[in-house]
């Protein structure tokens, strides 16, 4: 948004002699006034107030029904499923992502090609297709066995017993998540300066130590914000597990909604608020994790919100005192 020009100093008023300019030298410089910014701020505040007012007073939202549903056991059970599926897929997805990223950065062309193809395929196929495909997997492969490839099997599993709804959901989401995580991790590793690899090699640090203690911790600085972004997407993607008959947060609300059609809107609001809470919790954790890995990268650590609030208040008080003095 463009700013209207502030009050300009008329040159004609400028003192012609040396005498007053010495006087001016001791003057405090008044910052440019920006009336346009105040007007826009006022308009935005008005719009926000109107929106909040509508949200609270519009009977369409049925807030009494919302409070009835918000902590219902069905909803909380669904929330638990959402959390479980998210946590398992986030961990498995990241682990898979690290392996795939190392594959893509490997010197072996076969490992590079296999990792690239996996990422290409899983990023191309919609998650819902992966999930439904896995759901019907037992029809394609009746048993899973562990043994010599193309040779005899040592153990066999009955696929239909292994593939619970939960397992299908976690495997599907992890497969999908690993493809995206691979790129996030790869980007993080590439962001570490080549000199770090060289210094670690020149010191003769063992290969595993080089990755775990030197390269990866530095890569995490760029992996964390990107992976959290990914994680927030994942939290919401878990709503798709409803299609493989797992009743997560969204699924429970959806089921209740078909039983009590009048409550669809408050139920959707219940789901929205829970997702907002989950995302907020993740964002707070992100801040502190990022701060942890910022050690050494910046000369001083970024302030925590509490510290920011405290310095903000001190600044404001000082400013008011100054304005009052003028």
């Amino acid at each position, binding site marked *: 948004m463009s700013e209207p020009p502030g009050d300009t100093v008329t040159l004609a008023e400028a003192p012609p002699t040396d005498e007053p300019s010495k006087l001016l030298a001791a003057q405090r410089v008044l910052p440019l006034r920006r009336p346009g910014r105040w007007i826009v701020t006022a308009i935005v505040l008005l719009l926000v107030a109107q929106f909040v007012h509508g949200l609270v007073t519009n009977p369409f939202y049925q807030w009494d029904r919302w409070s009835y549903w918000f902590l219902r056991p069905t909803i909380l059970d669904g929330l638990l499923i959402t959390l479980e599926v998210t946590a398992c897929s986030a961990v498995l997805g990241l682990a898979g992502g690290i392996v795939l990223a190392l594959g893509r950065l490997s010197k072996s062309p076969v490992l590079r090609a296999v990792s690239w193809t996996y990422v290409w395929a899983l990023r191309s196929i919609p998650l819902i297709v992966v999930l439904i495909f896995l759901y019907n997997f037992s029809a394609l492969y009746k048993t899973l066995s562990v043994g010599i490839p193309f040779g005899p099997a040592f153990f066999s599993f009955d696929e239909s017993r292994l593939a619970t709804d939960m397992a299908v959901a976690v495997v599907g989401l992890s497969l999908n998540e690993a493809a995206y995580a691979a790129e996030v991790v790869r980007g993080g590793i590439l962001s570490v300066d080549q000199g*770090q690899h060289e210094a670690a*090699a*020149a*010191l*003769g*640090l063992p*290969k595993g130590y080089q990755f775990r203690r030197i390269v990866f911790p530095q890569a995490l600085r760029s992996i964390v914000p990107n992976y959290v972004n990914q994680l927030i997407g994942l939290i919401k993607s878990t709503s798709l597990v409803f299609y493989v008959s797992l009743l997560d947060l969204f699924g429970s609300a959806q089921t209740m909604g078909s039983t009590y059609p009048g409550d669809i809107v408050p139920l959707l609001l219940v789901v929205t608020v829970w997702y907002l809470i989950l995302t907020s919790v993740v964002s707070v954790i992100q801040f502190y994790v990022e701060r942890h890995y910022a050690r050494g990268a910046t000369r001083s650590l970024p302030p925590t919100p509490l510290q920011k609030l405290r310095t903000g208040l001190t600044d404001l008080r000082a400013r008011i005192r100054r304005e009052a003095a003028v």
Partner: protein
Amino acid sequence: MTVTTREALADVEAATVEVHDVHKWYGTHRVLDGVDLTVRPGEVTVILGPSGSGKSTLLRIINHLERPEIGHVSINGELIGVKRQGERLKELSERAILTQRGRIGFVFQNFNLFPHLTVLDNVAAAPVATGRLGKPEAQELARELLGRVGLADKTGAYPRQLSGGQQQRVAIARALALRPGVILFDEPTSALDPELVGEVLAVIKDLAASGTTLVIVTHEIGFAREIADRVVFIDGGKILEQGPPSEVLDTPRHERTRDFLSKVL
């Protein structure tokens, strides 16, 4: 396997470095074209040469950060990065090469300190990671070495909180932590503000006096004259001349050497 700090601090025997007929090329570009060099124990060798002459590559070949196409390097008679197999040389496993590098200190132009570790951990990391010292012993050694480079009060700082000169001194302490028989310096003062060069050179001079074998690539001619036992001039991937500083710097025999010195002095 692990030793005490006192043992780790005991004087290290200075190493002999031998570079034998080393050739290195990238594609069709020849970087080194048959380099032979012997550095005696405790000797300070300064390598001079115009940029792109192959002097940094030579240094990186000595600790096998780069693999020579032809030729070999040995330290105290032990081949570096390769082993003899009948009539041929075969590259060692990565693990074996990493072990050998523990005996060769390397100081980079851009310090390359680990920014996420404190100064103390930067210095203590290698002895712990390679299993030579337990953590407390390594930290004691690190404190001792940081004191020696004049940074005893900076142990808890992170590298980015230090000046360039201080960072390079930490890097030297880090290289010393493995008690190497030879230390290689790749333009150790080129990334520093002029006023900070002196403090780093003073530390290197100290090392030279303590009898460690040093190989230094630098553009500081005055410094070379002061501490070098031998100056080596490289151009176009070949050693053009070498000898005591009074010979190479004051009465160079080669036209290219004269030309180079007239530009940098």
